[in-house]
């Protein structure tokens, strides 16, 4: 069962959700710095270094994986059965990787 694509999709959804929930407080605290513009600029300068950009890329991919994987789950739960459901895991993963690739390309634009 653990080799089944649906189980892997479940695991990806769960682990990406945990990672996003752990990241969220830090993200919100940093945005709260916008009350002090100079502090936010200081953080953004720090975040421009390659290692942080790489971490951001992973976060963007995790967010996209959780979004597209979650849309798949909502569709399975709320919409009538479709034979195409088995393809949705692949589409969700492809869409998330495309967003990640877009982030990398745009970061160097």
């Amino acid at each position, binding site marked *: 069962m653990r080799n089944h694509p649906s189980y892997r999709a479940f695991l990806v959804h769960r682990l990406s959700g945990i990672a996003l929930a752990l990241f969220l407080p830090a993200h919100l*605290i940093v945005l709260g710095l916008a009350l002090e513009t100079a502090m936010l600029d200081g953080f953004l300068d720090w975040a421009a270094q390659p290692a942080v950009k790489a971490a951001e890329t992973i976060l963007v991919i995790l967010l996209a994986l959780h*979004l597209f994987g979650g849309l798949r789950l909502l569709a399975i739960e709320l919409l009538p059965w479709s034979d195409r459901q088995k393809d949705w895991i692949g589409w969700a993963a492809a869409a998330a990787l495309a967003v990640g690739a877009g982030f990398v390309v745009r970061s160097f634009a």
Partner: protein
Amino acid sequence: MKRLELWLYIAQRASALVLAPLVLLHLGVILYAVAGGLSASEILGRTRSTWMWPAAYGLFVVAAAVHAAIGLRVVLREWTSWRDRSLDLATLGIGLVLLLLGLRAVQAIA
């Protein structure tokens, strides 16, 4: 299914439906804004240009606080032995902390 579980299940799906278009928008803004580097003036120039950005982000943080707190509760119930009332209180606490941090962030960019 206990009444609380049913309501949490509904709240998790409802918050997901609210979050889906907002996360799509968020990803779109990220891809748009990241080009050329980020600065506070560029971010705040956008978020302060219309009341709709703070309104959208306000809805975003409320839905995210609900969704993250309930999601973590599901994981903890299934992957640990923590299932009693204290878990429900911890879930409420996590949701409230995320909500307060989120509303503070929205206030900062509004």
